[in-house]
């Protein structure tokens, strides 16, 4: 079965640079979520999109922005990178609303490991 795809899997950047992380949800999933997991931490919710509109926002820095495109893939743009941005970034997707319990499950991608030097 198709899974959530994230690219790149690993990314190394210098301080003050920018980074773009991409997420390709499972086909027919219309909702995308981004999470950040710092070293030794639990994943923290950043932002989500439903049908290309921002649906919820968590502890996302102003230096970060994200969007969902017409093909439902999403990109997380990170500017003025700081050492503290080094983390594992997960994307998750949910299927189309249609009743039943399955639309409550988020399917997680493998993550993008960002290292800021």
């Amino acid at each position, binding site marked *: 079965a198709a899974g959530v795809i994230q690219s790149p899997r690993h990314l190394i950047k210098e301080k003050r640079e920018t980074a773009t992380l991409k997420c390709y949800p499972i086909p027919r999933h219309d909702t995308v979520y981004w999470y950040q997991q710092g070293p030794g931490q639990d*994943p923290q919710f950043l932002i989500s999109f439903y049908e290309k509109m921002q649906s919820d926002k968590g502890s996302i820095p102003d230096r970060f922005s994200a969007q969902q495109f017409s093909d439902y893939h999403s990109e997380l743009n990170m500017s003025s990178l700081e050492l503290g941005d080094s983390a594992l970034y997960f994307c998750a997707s949910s299927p189309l609303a249609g009743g039943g319990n399955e639309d409550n499950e988020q399917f*997680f991608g*493998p993550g993008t490991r960002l290292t800021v030097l």
Partner: protein
Amino acid sequence: AQSVTQPDIHITVSEGASLELRCNYSYGATPYLFWYVQSPGQGLQLLLKYFSGDTLVQGIKGFEAEFKRSQSSFNLRKPSVHWSDAAEYFCAVKPGGYQKVTFGTGTKLQVIP
């Protein structure tokens, strides 16, 4: 807002011994509950989930969890631990609909021979 508490940061068990990882949640209604496992540097793998119905749910790798509404708990169990189970385990909660998942702080499991 929902929250999850995993009171045990580290647990060490002997291979072959039984395991129980504790999870308590706080939410106004019955949430959707999940257990994930994460090996170092790896992604999140879903072990099992509870949405409704039978309060004892079976998952992959021989894991099971029991939802107890009266205790707001969703503890994870395995009757016999294998060395390959050494990892970090996250309990997570989510309201219905397109809501975020809230994770507990995780429990690191060490398995000794």
